[in-house]
């Protein structure tokens, strides 16, 4: 079955940016086609890594930290994205361990190629790190890291990412899940539905 091809196609497209509509129609199916879905553990975030080696974790932390950087607001590092990825590889994305290991090897190879004295992505300067990811940004490996970073940044915190809801706070998503109108600026002084006044004047 061509699930591996689907996953690659998906990751390439994910890297290039997708419309929300396309995603709402397609992502559930496509993701599952690529993974064995296991019910993820809903425990608190682990203190240490269960799948990633300490060295891999440092590299992934650096990569995700460039995809969603820390500036005047928290980024992927504060969200604990690397912990989310570790837990994902332990649970519902256990089939992707190799893909992540391959991805890290490719990032390392590109780092060495572009900046020969530097041996590891995490050891490169911020400018060098951005240059490495730019060189990879249309490849499946970048798509994989970007995909995992965005999910880890915005997911339900019970999944181990989005710690202290930093992703939700960034974009203004209120997680109380129970709301009353008015919801936003434009419905504040809404007087109630009326038929089109233009029709009334025609009659």
């Amino acid at each position, binding site marked *: *079955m061509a*699930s591996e091809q*689907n996953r690659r196609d998906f990751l390439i497209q*994910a*890297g290039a*940016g*997708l*419309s*929300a*509509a*396309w*995603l*709402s129609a397609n*992502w*559930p*199916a*496509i993701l*599952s*086609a690529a993974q*064995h*879905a*296991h019910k*993820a553990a809903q425990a608190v975030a682990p203190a240490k890594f269960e799948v990633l080696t300490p060295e891999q974790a440092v590299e992934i932390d650096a990569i995700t930290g*460039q*995809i*969603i*950087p820390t*500036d005047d*607001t928290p980024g992927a590092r504060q969200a604990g994205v690397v912990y989310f990825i570790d837990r994902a590889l332990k649970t*519902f994305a256990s089939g992707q361990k190799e893909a992540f290991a391959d991805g890290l090897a490719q990032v390392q190879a590109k780092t060495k190629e572009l900046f020969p004295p530097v041996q590891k992505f995490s050891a490169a300067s911020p400018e060098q790190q951005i240059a490495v990811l730019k060189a990879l940004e249309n490849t499946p490996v970048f798509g994989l890291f*970007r995909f995992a*970073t*965005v*999910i880890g*940044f*915005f*997911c*339900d915190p019970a999944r181990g990412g989005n710690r202290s809801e930093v*992703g*939700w706070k*960034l*974009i*203004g*998503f*209120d997680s109380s*899940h*129970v*709301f*009353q*109108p*008015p*919801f*936003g*600026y*434009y*419905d504040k002084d*809404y007087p109630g*539905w009326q038929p*089109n006044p*233009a029709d009334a004047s025609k009659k």
Partner: protein
Amino acid sequence: MRQAGPKFETTDEVDFVIVGSGAAGGVLAKELSSNGFRVVVLEQGPYLTPDQFDHDDLHVFFENALTNKPQLQPTTFRKTSPDKANPQPAVMYGRCVGGSSVHFTANYWRFHEIDFIERSKHGPVAGTGFADWPIPYADLEPYYTKVEWEVGVSGLAGASPFDPPRSKPYAYPPLPVKSGGVIFERAAQKLGWHPFPAPMAILSKPAAGRGACVHCGYCLGFGCEVGAKSSTVASVIPIAERTGRCEIRPDSNVFRIETNERGRVTGVAYFDSQKRQQFQKAKVVVVSANGAETPRLLLLSASKLFPNGLANSSGLVGKYLMPNSFLEVFGVYEHPLNDYKGAAVSRILHDFYEAGAQNGYCGGGGLDSRLAVTPVGFGLGGLPSDAPTWGSAYKSLLREYFTRTMSVSTHGTSLPVESNSFSLDPDLKDAWGLPALRVTYTDHPDDLKNTAFLMARALEIHQAAGARKTWHQPVQETQFFVHLLGTCRMGNDSKTSVINADHRAHDVPNLFLCDGSSFVTSGRGQPTMTIQALAYRAADRITALAKRGDLSV
């Protein structure tokens, strides 16, 4: 939490077996059990209760908690029948008690009178099997009203000048408008159009032990924890179980309808949760498995007497697939809308319901204002296609756009083309060893013209509203199917349809089919209301046949 119904032995010949517990199956279960019949409903998915619903994207979208599972139920796709179909996820439907009514967006548009008679009004369309329904709108009207009051629909009667006649107002007042709805309404009125409060199968007030909507915004893709969304598992299935005559049997994957030497069905074979084969005896079988799985089950039930599949003397089982067109046009505005809150849609318009007639094609549609996206979905794909996808610029754009974005979505017709179909894949098998579902589909040119026309109107709304930026997908070919319509269609002629106006298979007197597959035309994009009106009507017809001794129940 769960209201338990009775348990029937598989060897006990019950009056009705219903395959599927979704929008149609749930209604039929309630109606037939309330009318005194003994009913077993077989559902392939689990029986989930509201405490098992959550707002976890990973659970719902990545682990397919509520929907079909592509890793167990692979599908294949091809554009035309000479091609070899490639394995790819092509279909999504609900796979739990309540079916797709658990995770749907809950837009409940009635069909209009034209939807039933458009072939006569418009004339034939080359390359299609375009036909009138054997029943007019007036026959369904009482059942639409029944859906609104019994399943639960919120809306404002008389607000749209294009609405068909109705015998009663909506059961509940409309849900509150969202900022996107206000923007849509003001701009559309400026353009001379007629926006109105969206009819939604979501309770705006508590009723019948169900909560009112809390405006959490998690409708599309998610189950409703407060029972406000009018899924069949929240509305009619508990009533069916309380009759004491209806058993909902989850984790039961039906793979064959058995027939005897006289060509009558005798019951259904299914895999239980342990993949053991079981056989439930029944006097009558009703298939409400959805527009993909209903024809697949008939094709899987081929026998010596029915070599091309059960009830398929017309050769039309699985044919005339109509998915409806859908395209979103996004706009970003100056101030926060927070449209992630609340039911997805709050305003719609039907000014272009018959747009094709004035624009040289067959079809039409509606527009709505909506946002149905979670933070994960927005982060992955919510920004315009020319926006940065990572780094500081990406981050600051997410921050600016998430609360300020809305979409005007287009919903339109699909014409019935015979080669557009569900069939059995000759090579690929599912996790139960059964032939996988194969989709063959090429959009009719009129459907694409209609989408382009509606997209232009959606852009006009954003422009009239003063959007700071707009973007949209291109008009493109359909390769993923959610609305599954027309694949066992209804008609008076057994050569050009699969079931009659009573939903009875032309070829098999004790077999009934009722779901999206029964549709003759596609409507303008929101099929569930009509699926349920048909189910209420079918239950009345089946009960009348049974009472006059036609079904030996």
